């Protein structure tokens, strides 16, 4: 599908003065697409030039359309000397390619979308507006107004290299308003290329030229990876890739690796999916596009299942008619209502519980997507899904987190992309085999990370092994799928069987670990759940039931009877990398749980370094997981969701951070309170009892704060244990035995430190802190508005000293950072901090850098507490305690339209504090909202406009003059947010969801007064509507 790209340069404004003598600029523009360059006339002596020229036309090949960004460079014309560059704008044309093709079936139904965008007009779509002109040495220098249009020729050649029409989403879930008809599976692509920074040419060219060469390369790579991933998706018969993640590994001398992973799906708009469409009419895609394998046996069995479910869900349909938003049409045969949690069973997860349609994001009212075919999931080479959030009822059971790491030595010159492919392939096979060992058929929330130190690279792949619904939704036993060698992986059939073998040759080292922590176990939670829970969704305790047979389980598992159904077996602890499913049974609220482990390492080179690292990794991981299990116990919770474990290697340190959201899953047992035991030789008995007391206090407090102890449990604690007289008590005794209680042995100061680390400082009142998309189990409040997306960067010099543990001091500082975050956001309470991401970098032997990215959202009180007695009590308590002062100015930011009167008030608003303990849903919002969440709180996503990825480089040779590195980085982040916002606006959007910031590298040379900073950001541009919009 070749296309015509038409570009019009209209005007510029606020350009910098390039001609010092005349205090003005003679600007012209170079427009470059692929290898063709056009130029505009010179607009003399103006800082606000008007070009108003005709369209510049480019005839471009279809692959180039996807791979090449449109480059717009502003230049200053000089008669005598070389023309100076003012700056550049890169425009990724990919978002335009979708709109013009199949917008009809992808764009969500909405009354406004058609008239606002009219993307079908003449087959072209536009991308236009004011773009900041960015220079890598000077930052933003003015703006230029550009309009871009594309005319595509339709071409349905099967053998084409382009993948137009495949829509990409960073959103790790089914995009709102759309429905995933089929999930085809995992798609990935990897490209290795030279890094311009390390080319010989770099020695003679200017830093600006190098930076621009790199930026251009990153844009091209991003386009090319996307195109190739799209091709694979196309091959599978998909029309979109969701949960798309693009990463760049800067391997230094050996080049740049661009990796993209995602999940290929067939998306249809909700409208298309709803009426009249029955399952058997839907085309089942298969490996060959176009070919329908309409009804084979697997298909039929699926149908049976569907009918089966339908039968049992009839009753509950009538239970909650008010919950059906009237703007959503549903298939009559849809059975999902039965498993839609009612608002009062979970508190509210995001939109739940309130009657306001505007705020309901219908994510649970969709028909459940289907994995391609029952049999095909086994045929998939990698049964991985990169999504975090799944439609209701999709996940049948959780196996647990699986993870694999390998340490690789990068070698110059000998590398080919194939070797990287192979590395990842090994890792994926390992993950797959772990998952199969757990009798699970898919890996959910799959992600791949890498960290590089010098020439050693650690690759990690992790995910959550799970069984997804295809046949047995209610079966209490899912037959253990036999591990069978993969028939479909034609490339390396041998790979499957020998994944666990060590690859030796001294160059590679591998450390891997199955991370299902089913450590010692204790007393079970003996009661059924409070109030309304139990009778509504009893089937859903099955989510927690172990999918594997305990007899053949690959590792010692302490499974006990499910506290809800008393039939299935549940593990005592569950770690997952996905969002908590809506149908999960939760007691109390979720909270952030994080452990940091820091180990010293010898500063070695090459192979020694690799060995050092791989020797150290298992210990690091062990420390991390045992710490996280113990922390969970202190919190009184039994599961972690969205767990992210990242390992960073520096010259002298290895740092591991695991962050997740702790939850109490009702079917699973309550964790024991850790007990401390000192060795005989220990002379500090006193401090031990002290610590023990503090630990117990912390446990009790946490349980109270997060409401994780059901009433009866409390009674049991205070009174006798005699109440535990269920019929299955004997079995319980067997399971618990003497090794059940959690005992932490304290032999010396180091152990003591570790214990101290378990006690986290409390989160101030008014804050709810999690790393998930919603606040699980939030009671009395709901998410109503989005307040701020924030980035916090902390960098410090590491001063090694003997007497304190590495982990302890790292922990102390991260704690301080968090407290400082709460302090900065104190005026926004009651607020939730969602999607907190922690990133650690070790840029130098003695430097550490931590980046925190998150979203502050406003919590509003639900008019009538829907919860049972315990919940409403806590929420009421919170209300009265929440006497925080909210500045007028914050209020104006949160609710712009309300602020009209306030602008006439005097400047000293700080004194006229408002008492505010609830946020209101916004009726509109100024500017462009950027959020790492996959939805915009308080707004409805009308349209997805395209996936944007940016890679920016900023360099400066005058750090001191700018005001130091703080100002340099602060200014840079501010600028790139401005550029992202401008691009969103140019696409006709007003928000970005699933915003991410990946590569954040700051190279500093203070003595030379130099600094260079690299950041990769991106997300999905969307247009949202607020309740106040017309």
């Amino acid at each position, binding site marked *: 599908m070749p296309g015509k790209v038409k570009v019009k340069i209209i005007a510029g404004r606020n350009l910098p003065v390039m001609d010092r003598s005349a205090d003005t600029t003679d600007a012209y523009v170079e427009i470059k697409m692929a290898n063709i360059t056009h130029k505009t006339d010179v607009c003399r002596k103006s800082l606000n030039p008007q070009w108003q020229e005709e369209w510049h036309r480019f005839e471009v090949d279809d692959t180039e359309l996807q791979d090449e960004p449109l480059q717009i460079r502003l230049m200053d014309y000089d008669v005598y000397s070389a023309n100076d560059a003012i700056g550049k704008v890169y425009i990724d044309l990919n978002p335009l390619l979708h709109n013009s093709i199949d917008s009809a079936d992808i764009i969500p139904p909405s009354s406004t979308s058609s008239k606002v965008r009219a993307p079908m007009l003449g087959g072209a779509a536009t991308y236009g507006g004011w773009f*900041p002109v960015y220079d890598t040495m000077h930052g933003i220098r003015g703006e230029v107004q550009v309009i871009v249009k594309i005319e595509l020729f339709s071409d349905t050649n099967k053998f084409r290299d382009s993948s137009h029409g495949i829509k990409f989403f960073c959103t790790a879930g089914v995009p709102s308003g759309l429905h995933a008809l089929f999930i085809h599976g995992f798609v990935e692509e990897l490209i290795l290329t030279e890094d311009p920074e390390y080319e010989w040419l770099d020695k003679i060219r200017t830093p600006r030229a190098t930076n621009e060469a790199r930026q251009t390369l990153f844009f091209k790579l991003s386009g090319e990876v996307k195109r190739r991933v799209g091709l694979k998706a196309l091959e599978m018969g998909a029309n979109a890739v969701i949960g798309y993640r693009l990463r760049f590994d800067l391997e230094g001398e050996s080049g740049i690796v661009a990796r993209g992973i995602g999940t290929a799906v067939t998306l249809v708009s909700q409208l298309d999916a709803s009426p009249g469409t029955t399952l058997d009419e839907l085309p089942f895609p298969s490996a060959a596009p176009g070919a329908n394998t309409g009804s084979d046996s697997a298909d039929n069995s699926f149908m049976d299942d569907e009918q089966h479910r339908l039968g049992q869900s009839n009753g509950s349909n009538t239970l909650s008619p008010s919950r059906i938003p009237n703007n959503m049409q549903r298939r009559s045969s849809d059975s999902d209502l039965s498993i839609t949690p009612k608002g009062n069973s979970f508190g509210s997860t995001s939109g739940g519980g309130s009657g306001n349609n505007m705020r309901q994001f219908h994510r649970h009212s969709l028909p459940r997507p289907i994995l391609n075919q029952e049999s095909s999931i086994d045929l998939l080479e990698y049964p991985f899904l990169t999504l975090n959030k799944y439609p209701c009822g999709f996940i049948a059971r959780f196996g647990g987190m699986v993870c694999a790491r390998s340490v690789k030595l990068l070698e110059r010159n000998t590398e080919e992309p194939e070797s990287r492919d192979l590395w990842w392939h090994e890792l994926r096979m390992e993950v797959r085999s772990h998952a199969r060992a757990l009798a699970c058929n898919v890996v959910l929330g799959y992600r791949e990370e890498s960290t590089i130190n010098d020439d050693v690279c650690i690759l990690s792949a992790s995910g959550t092994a799970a069984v997804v619904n295809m046949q047995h939704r209610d079966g209490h036993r899912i037959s253990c799928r036999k591990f069978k060698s993969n028939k479909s992986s034609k490339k390396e059939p041998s790979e499957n069987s020998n994944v666990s073998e060590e690859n030796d040759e001294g160059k590679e080292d591998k450390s891997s670990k199955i991370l299902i922590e089913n450590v010692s176990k204790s007393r079970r939670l003996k009661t059924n759940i409070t109030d309304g829970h139990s009778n509504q969704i009893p089937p859903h305790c099955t989510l927690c039931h172990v999918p594997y047979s305990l007899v053949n389980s690959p590792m010692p598992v302490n499974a006990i009877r499910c506290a809800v159904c008393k039939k299935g077996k549940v593990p005592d602890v569950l770690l997952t990398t996905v969002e908590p499913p809506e149908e999960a049974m939760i007691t109390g609220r979720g909270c952030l749980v994080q452990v940091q482990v820091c180990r010293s390492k010898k500063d070695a080179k090459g192979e020694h370094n690799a060995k050092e690292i791989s020797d150290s990794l298992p210990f690091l991981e062990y420390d991390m997981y045992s710490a996280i299990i113990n922390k969970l116990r202190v919190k009184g919770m039994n599961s972690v969701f969205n767990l992210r474990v990242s390992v960073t290697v520096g010259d002298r340190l290895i740092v591991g951070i695991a962050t997740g959201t702790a939850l109490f899953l009702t079917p699973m047992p309550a964790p024991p309170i850790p007990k401390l035991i000192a060795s005989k030789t220990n002379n500090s008995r006193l401090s031990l009892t002290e610590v023990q007391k503090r630990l117990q206090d912390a446990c009790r407090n946490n349980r109270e704060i997060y409401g994780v102890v059901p009433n009866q449990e409390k009674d049991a604690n205070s009174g006798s244990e005699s109440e535990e007289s269920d019929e299955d008590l004997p079995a319980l005794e067997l399971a618990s035995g003497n090794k059940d209680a959690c005992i932490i042995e304290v032999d010396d100061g180091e152990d003591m430190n570790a214990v101290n680390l378990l006690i986290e400082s409390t989160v*101030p009142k008014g804050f709810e802190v999690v790393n998930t998309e919603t606040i699980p189990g939030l009671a009395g409040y709901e998410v109503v508005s989005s307040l701020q997306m924030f*980035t916090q960067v902390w960098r*410090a010099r590491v001063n090694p000293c003997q007497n304190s543990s590495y982990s302890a001091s790292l922990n102390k500082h991260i704690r301080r950072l968090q407290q400082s975050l709460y302090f900065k956001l104190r005026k926004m309470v009651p607020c939730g901090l969602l999607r907190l991401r922690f990133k650690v970098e070790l840029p130098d032997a003695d430097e550490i850098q931590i980046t925190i990215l998150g979203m502050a959202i406003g919590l509003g009180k639900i008019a009538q507490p829907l919860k049972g007695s315990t919940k409403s009590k806590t929420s009421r308590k919170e209300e009265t305690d929440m006497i925080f002062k909210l*500045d007028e100015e914050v209020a104006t930011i949160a609710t712009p339209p309300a602020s009209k009167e306030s*602008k006439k008030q005097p400047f000293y608003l*700080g004194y006229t504090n408002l008492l505010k303990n609830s946020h209101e849903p916004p009726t509109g919002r100024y500017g*462009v909202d950027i959020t790492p969440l996959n939805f915009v709180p308080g707004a409805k996503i009308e349209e997805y406009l395209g996936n944007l990825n940016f890679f920016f480089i900023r360099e400066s040779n005058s750090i001191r003059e700018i005001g130091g590195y703080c100002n340099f980085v602060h200014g840079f982040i501010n600028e790139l947010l*401005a550029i992202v*916002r401008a691009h969103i606006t140019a696409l006709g959007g007003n928000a970005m969801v699933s915003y991410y910031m990946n590569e954040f590298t700051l190279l500093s040379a203070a003595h030379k007064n130099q600094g260079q900073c690299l950041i990769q950001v991106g997300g999905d541009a969307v247009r949202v509507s607020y309740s106040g919009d017309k």
Partner: protein
Amino acid sequence: MDFSTTMEIFVSNYTLIDNEIYELWVEGVSAIEAVCQLKGKALLQQGSNVEMLQSEIEDHYRTYSLLERLLHNPAKIKDHQLEFQIEPQIMSMLIQRYYKFDDAVYRDILGKKLSTRNRKDLDDLSERTGINILSCRRQFDNAKRVFKVVEEMPGLVVKNIIDNFALDKELAKSYATVVFLGSLRFDCTKRKLQYLSFQDLSHCAHAIMANWTCKEQGPEQDDTEFDREFLLDLKDLRVMLDKDREHKHLVCAKVKPQMLEKVFQDVENNFKTYTRAILGISCGLHRSREMRTLFIDMVEKCLEPWYAAHWSRADLSIFLAAYTHSALEMDALREAELRQSWERCMNVLSACLTCLHKDKKEKK
């Protein structure tokens, strides 16, 4: 292992503005001092400490210093800057606040050339007034910036300032004073004029701009340029010198019922001196040197004798009103053009003289 923090920054999508901190920043208070000032108020929450406050204040200071570049060019920025996501009304507040000034500082720079040399003298001013030196420099630079942009621009100066700097009308008027008195080099620095505040002079300046400049709509419109023709016409008012008897008669008749006997006697006795002083100033205005010394002339030639005679401001306005109106009844001013010149001239002089006149108490 220990860490020594080298960088701690916090950036948000919507630019956070804190009025109190912004105020301190504008006033030139250093971040460290700001911490001390806000320490008492901010630590409401448990678990917070001074370091957090400091880090917050530093975040804000960094943001503001990035914003400062834009604030130098507010009108362009107000509606369509992309770098910061700030609502227009908050942006407008930031601009107004940034261009706010201390009377003492602007009083000091009135009529001075806004040169680098004078910028150095701000140290003295800062010491004298207790206003932070950074704040003095900001105000000086603001004045200079506005001056540079507006000085040569045709049209009404207040409107030009509003258009180019998005300032409130009141604020724009003050800057217009600085530009007007500065570009025409009015002498405001004499010791005898020190008792006048910025507002006094601003009042006079606007009176002059309203009456003596090329205000007429058209291509030549520029209220920082004098209407030269008019100033030359003022020479013809000399005829009034010869008619002082008649004039005196009319004035005396008018003021007698309104004045104390003592002051009235003074009017009767010294009318000729007074009218000479006033007409002397008026007739010399076409010479730019005399225009520049207008204020000092008014003080020395007119006000000082009146002070000596213990005139109150009320007396003065009664006298000036009578003086202006009586002349219009005289044959000497029969010509329409001359009458008009007289009115335009006396409007300003009356306004200025009453404004410059301070009763003893006010003066100190």
